[in-house]
């Protein structure tokens, strides 16, 4: 066999073998990974709505209290107790300073006030922009008005203003834009999710 032929067969067989191994690993881990992503989103919702349950009861509680509506912008989660709407969570995604930020924002049923905010994933600078995930910052959104729009700025005074993170102006601005843009989009197609 010539060297060229040997090279060809070696590379093809190595590539084929690797592909088979990867396929097996992916098939084996896929259900676990899908389950983890599902639990992570449900846990984020629970913390937003102030629900506290152990992991093994998450699915049961979720289907009992929370109704999911898929829209073009993203998922809408409506939280009911005793047949009364308590809170509405919207999935918001957009570009942060370094990468994609995914979050859930909860609105009160009056559709004027923010109930809470939680970050699902982000790629901001640790110690600076990553502070958007800390309770100290997130709790500031509670009871703020999101109309006409949210402002994340230095020295927040009005009830639609939130204190920005020191040293992370770009992340603060990006988050402000994501919240305002996505809420506007959801409100524009309100009839699709509000009455259901």
């Amino acid at each position, binding site marked *: 066999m010539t*060297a060229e032929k*040997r*090279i060809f067969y*070696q*590379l093809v067989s*190595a*590539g084929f073998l*690797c592909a088979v*191994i*990867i396929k097996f*690993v*992916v098939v084996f*881990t896929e259900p*676990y*990974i899908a389950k*983890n*992503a599902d639990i*992570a989103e449900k846990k984020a919702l629970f913390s937003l709505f102030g629900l506290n349950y152990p992991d093994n009861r998450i699915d049961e509680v979720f289907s009992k209290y929370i109704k999911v509506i898929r829209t073009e912008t993203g998922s809408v989660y409506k939280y009911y107790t005793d047949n009364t709407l308590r809170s509405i969570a919207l999935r918001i995604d957009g570009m942060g300073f370094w990468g994609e930020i995914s979050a859930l924002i909860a609105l009160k049923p009056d559709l004027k006030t923010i109930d809470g905010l939680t970050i699902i*994933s982000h*790629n901001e*600078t*640790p*110690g*600076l922009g990553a502070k958007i995930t800390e309770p100290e910052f997130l709790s500031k959104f509670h009871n703020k008005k999101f109309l006409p729009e949210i402002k994340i700025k230095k020295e927040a005074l009005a009830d639609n203003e939130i204190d920005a993170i020191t040293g992370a102006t770009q992340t603060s601005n990006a988050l402000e834009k994501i919240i305002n843009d996505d809420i506007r989009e959801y409100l524009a197609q309100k009839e699709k999710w509000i009455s259901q």
Partner: protein
Amino acid sequence: MNLDRKTAHRIFIDGVWINNPIAITGLGLCSALAVTGRVKYALTMSAGVMFVNLLSSVAVSVIRKKIEPRVRMAVYTLIIAVLVICFDRFLKAFYPLISGELGPYVGLIITNCVIFGRAEVFASKNSPLLSAIDALGHSTGYAMALIFVSVVRELFASGTIFGYNMFSPAFKPWVVMEMSPGAFLVLAVYIWIVRFIQNVTERKQA
């Protein structure tokens, strides 16, 4: 094959101390800077590198006589990439929180020069058993650096080790330790300490 203890010991110590990947050969620096913010990230990363390094060295050593020299690099890359994907998927499936916090760095083990270096320099010329010892030695040396840097950084950045508080609540965190300049500083101190000790012992022997 007979393996005498002296040779095994010499090969292992070469990786852990004499040619310590981070302090002496300067390999694997990127991950030593990036994932050392918390001790548990450093341990996860060290475990990943050890797993990939060990199995890739053995695999490279097994095929070393059959592979065409011109395509050996491509095949090493394939072997390492497959092992890294296995480790990444394993973390994602069973330790989703750590996997999420480490972000892209687990996948970047593929480009870790410690692993590629051992495959090319040692495993491609030695028996599988010796290659395994060599890989273990170098991964241990790599882990040592990561653990040192992460302990110092976590301690000063948040006053904790493994998430447990080490100082009184009055401790004011050094934010710089959590950011990249802190990593550069602590890594430099680590390299300085290792070289200082090596210099002293060398002078004594001379």
